[in-house]
């Protein structure tokens, strides 16, 4: 059994989760403070990828990044980099579909954060940086962690936009989900089942790890 699809899926999900972690947190932090109209508009725009079919997200991404589109063509001309049909292309897809999960859970966590703690910290002379990373983030960690895991799981399982952006090239862009489809399409059911089990195992392990982690941390400050 060739393990490349697993390795590829994990690296795509890891890179995209790292990006989405910061993007989602900063979007949530900024938008929480924005005026109401801006908040309403941005909230819809940033959440759209969650409800759009992944193929629509893929189509829109191709519209921007495709080799004959302005941005894709420019990057190709300037840096000699293809934005589609490489394993990195799948990162764009994974980021786009998993971002709303991180953003919304982080925003929910920030909204339930008691603002007087930040105000008290400022009056005590603590820097805004310290207050955000050492007070607000630890207190909101359950929501942040949940968002991160959801984003990772979503990125790991992403299929629709990924297949449009990165395609299926064995050993180059194949991921677990595109491999399962390919194996099913070509009638290799036994192999497909193995990949399905791998997928189930990873997802269950991730969720279990988070549950254990949260229970352990939950004891540290009553």
């Amino acid at each position, binding site marked *: 059994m060739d393990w490349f699809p697993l390795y590829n899926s994990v690296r795509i999900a890891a890179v995209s989760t790292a990006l989405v972690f910061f993007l989602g947190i900063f979007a949530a932090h900024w938008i929480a403070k924005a005026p109401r109209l801006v908040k309403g508009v941005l909230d819809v725009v940033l959440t759209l990828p969650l409800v759009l079919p992944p193929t629509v997200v893929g189509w829109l991404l191709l519209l921007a990044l495709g080799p004959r589109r302005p941005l894709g063509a420019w990057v190709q001309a300037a840096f000699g980099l293809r934005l589609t049909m490489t394993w990195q292309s799948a990162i764009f897809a994974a980021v786009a579909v998993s971002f709303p999960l991180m953003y919304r859970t982080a925003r929910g966590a920030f909204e339930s954060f008691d603002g007087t703690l930040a*105000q008290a910290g400022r*009056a005590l002379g*603590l820097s805004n940086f310290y207050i955000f990373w050492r007070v607000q983030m630890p207190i909101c960690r359950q929501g942040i962690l949940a968002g991160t895991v959801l984003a990772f799981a979503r990125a790991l399982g992403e299929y629709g936009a990924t297949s449009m952006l990165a395609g299926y090239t064995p050993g180059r862009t194949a991921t677990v989900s595109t491999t399962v489809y390919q194996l099913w399409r070509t009638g290799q059911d036994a192999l497909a089942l193995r990949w399905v089990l791998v997928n189930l195992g990873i997802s269950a392990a991730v969720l279990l790890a988070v549950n254990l982690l949260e229970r352990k941390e939950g004891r540290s*400050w009553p």
Partner: protein
Amino acid sequence: MALTVRIQKRYGDFRLDVDLSAETGRALALLGASGCGKSVTLKCIAGIDRPDRGRIELDGRVLFDSGAGIDLPPQRRRVGFLFQNYALFPHMTVERNVAVCLGRLDKRRRQARTAELLALLHLEGQAALYPRQLSGGQQQRAALARILAAEPRVLLLDEPFSALDSFLKWQLEQELREVLDRFPGPVVWVSHDRGEVFRNCPRVCVLDAGRSSPVMDMAELMSNPGTVGAARLSGCKNFAALRPGPAPGLVEVPAWGLTLQVSAPWREGLTTLGLRAHHLHPAEAGEANAFPCQIVRVTEDTSAVLAALRPDAASPGAPLLWMELPKEHWAALPDRDRLLAAVRPEDLMLLE
């Protein structure tokens, strides 16, 4: 050392217009009903909220000046703010809550200073506990230790006892007093509880619907509050419209059908008579300002009896007069239906 505040701020229809000053050694009470702008005023001083216009000065340092475009961030104001809920960081131990505010010291000095502050506030045994494991009083002391760690130049207390059970208050008030008495800067104590601030603050500023009264001595608020709003906050229960009487030293109260002797001179702008319930008493023989009343209703309090009186000459629909008597005086009354009540001329408050 002094704090002077002159600020204005609009919130929709609500207008905040505050002018006050506080000095070291004479805690200033900011007294007002809920929603009158007390907390907002404190937040403006701390830099957490921003006034539309005005100037805030602390020991000659300008913290805010809309004209000069000065608006120091909270971190540079050195204002100690005790929040209603104490705002301790829930994920840090008591010790850590204090130590994080001592980042300017090296590790050894920080530990020493933390231990010193915890000892000062009798929290040595709670150093390793988390805020939620503390009682309300311990939380308050932990918050104070943390504030003192930041070495503020002024202390702002926002309803320091509103989160506590009343039976705890007395002891905690004494402990807070200890800290305040040692604090080398001005103190502003926000409250809606006149008893609490009467016991602890020699100076008072009344905030009524966003407007501040001039700062005065607490004793003056009790004897001569000046306005109806201030009188109400100082605990006065009886009010009625007022007009000058037929001779100097007399005033007429049409609602109660009374002409009363007063010791304060008449002046333009007076509209209302204020009469404290405990100043009303059964008349002695030959006492001035005596009037016959019917006793309409009686309410027993823990240590006193409150009786609602209707003067015989009162017009229909006039507000009842509340009289507060110690229980033993009430028990000694010969008649529980009718009473000759009286009030001393110097106890009558003429209000705007």
